[in-house]
């Protein structure tokens, strides 16, 4: 098979959607935080904590969906901490976010080592199985790519629609967008800026937690160290790439997934000539290039990273 033929295989596109799924959750989560004016660099750690908490719930006998719910709650809890520190206290969003990542990651690792002091191979669970959707899954290529995925992937697509509806069609969404663009105007309309921002960060962080749990409950069946491997940071880049819009974020995550799936296959094809590390670097380099291209016309939420204090202009 040559490099071009790969593009016409259904398995490539199925893998693209699979790789995109955790990124969709994470990117939507970061997008909501930033739309409310809060940069959340806790994302990498929150995904780790979600991956661990969701997996542990299932390992201890919980239902898979309970695992997803626990991952979301874990994410929301760290979101509450981040929100409390950066919104009413107005601490540096960069420093606090990195601190949340360090804390959530180390707590997960500590809890993992505490629960499993001596394991040679990571304990496993029975993960989500694919749910082929009747009729649709029989369509060539598209059917396998889109309609023979696990339920969590379908949930990711639903989440895009829900977040888009929430942001653009509901009063809550208007409140989120207003506190991220012009908090003074929001306050004048009787919106409590502090609470809207904290709630948005909690909701976004819950999505990040679910994104992390996709890895342990759907893509793999165990938890291991460093498993998020920069996906959180890539999601932060994808938010810029998607111009803070849920639809474009979905497109970005899917393009990224397609690229990553393609490089994995090229690796097998060209591995003899090119070191495998080059292929592994490509997704990170691609993200940097995407940022360069998009940053020139990036329309940042105007109040992003600016702490709000009542009565101050």
């Amino acid at each position, binding site marked *: 098979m040559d490099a071009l033929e790969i593009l016409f295989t259904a398995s490539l596109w199925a893998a693209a959607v699979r790789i995109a799924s955790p990124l969709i959750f994470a990117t939507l989560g970061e997008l909501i935080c930033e739309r409310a004016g809060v940069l959340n660099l806790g994302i990498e750690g929150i995904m780790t904590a979600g991956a661990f908490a969701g997996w542990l719930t299932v390992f201890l006998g919980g239902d898979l969906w309970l695992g997803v719910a626990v991952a979301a709650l874990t994410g929301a809890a760290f979101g509450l901490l981040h929100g409390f520190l950066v919104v*009413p*206290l107005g601490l540096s969003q960069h420093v606090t976010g*990195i601190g949340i990542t*360090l804390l959530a990651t180390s707590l997960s*690792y500590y809890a993992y080592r505490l629960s499993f002091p001596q394991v040679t191979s990571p304990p496993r669970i029975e993960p989500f199985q694919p749910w082929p959707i009747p009729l649709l899954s029989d369509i060539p290529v598209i059917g396998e790519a889109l309609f023979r995925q696990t339920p969590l992937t379908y949930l990711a697509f639903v989440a895009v629609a829900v977040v888009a509806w929430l942001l653009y069609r509901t009063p809550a969404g208007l409140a989120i967008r207003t506190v991220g663009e012009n908090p003074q105007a929001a306050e004048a309309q009787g919106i409590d800026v502090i609470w809207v921002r904290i709630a948005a960060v909690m909701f976004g962080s819950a999505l990040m937690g679910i994104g992390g749990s996709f890895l342990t409950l759907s893509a793999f069946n165990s938890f291991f160290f460093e498993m998020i491997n920069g996906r959180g940071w890539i999601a932060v880049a994808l938010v810029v790439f998607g111009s803070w819009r849920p639809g474009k974020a979905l497109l970005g995550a899917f393009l990224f997934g397609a690229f990553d799936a393609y490089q994995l296959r090229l690796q097998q094809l060209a591995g003899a000539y090119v070191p495998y590390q080059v292929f592994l670097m490509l997704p*990170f380099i691609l993200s940097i290039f995407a940022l360069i291209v998009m940053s020139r016309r990036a329309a940042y939420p105007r109040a992003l990273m600016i702490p709000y*204090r009542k009565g101050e202009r």
Partner: protein
Amino acid sequence: MRLEPRGKRPLRILIGYPVAALAASVVFCALLVMLSGASPFSVLGLMVKGALGSQFAFLETLTRATPLIFTGLAVAVAFRAKLWNIGAEAQLYAGAVMTVVLGTGLLPLPQPILIPVLMAAAMLGGALVLSVPTFLKTRFGVDEVVTTLLLNFVAVLFVSMLLEGPLKDPMGLGWPQSRKVIPEAQLPKLVEGKRLHFGFVIAIAAALVVWFIERKAALGYEMRAVGHNPKAASFAGIPVSLVLAKTALLSGGLAGLAGMTEVTGLKGNLTLDLSPGFGYTGIVVAMLALLHPMGVIAAAIFVAAIFVGADAMSRTAGVPSYIAHVMVALSLLSMVTAVMLTRYRIRWQSYGRA
């Protein structure tokens, strides 16, 4: 709830709050230790003993503090100018790569010449790595937080590629490691038979140089001005992009030195586990030091003591050594909170609608 600037900042608050913050982190970790069934008092005792309890332990703590002083300084100078360098990890590896490229026999120079050459090369390597995101920031407006973070992953993969390719030790039995640096490139030990090396002295000297630059040199003034308000600095005639570029060279260079001293002082060669996150921990060190270069030395020793103590403790008490990472992350968050509360007081009652 609202924040109100404090008029006076009495000494008991300036000192008491940060101390209370660190104490709170310790108490929280004690609760986590209790989950493991061990006694928190004996665990804390073992940690203190393991980090400071003997000459060996204390020298080990100083050895671990050495790279943290460099990465802490790197982060502190960058953050001073609000250049968010989260990529000290990548810059550290760049410095280490330069060191093994030049120091494994390519330059057959005597020690007094070779070591300064390697230091300069390592600084150059680290500086170049940070100039890329800084250029992208000033030229295209690309947020350097994300680019420096992403470059950390690229750097580690790049080092992995070198260690399995051109830099691979032919005598390494297939392990991904570089050859050892030649004896002339090795930093002398400070205490005979112990691991503490001359890199610690270089680190202290680096802190003094940074302190001098920040207090006495024009660059220090410009960095503070740019960090405080780039628009005002630009209006006052300070070339903001140029100042950020100089800051990047200084910051990246300092992180590069961490890689050089770890290779030439401690490990002897380059492996993929050269840095267990020294770059990220440098952020904690810098924040605990309130970005002050002299404070970085103390903060680095404090953080190193937690790690060294936890390693020793986990060997005997069986509590996972990840507790050290939890404690370090918590001290970062509680410290920045405490510092904020020394400047503002919380008022819970509301003054009507604003």
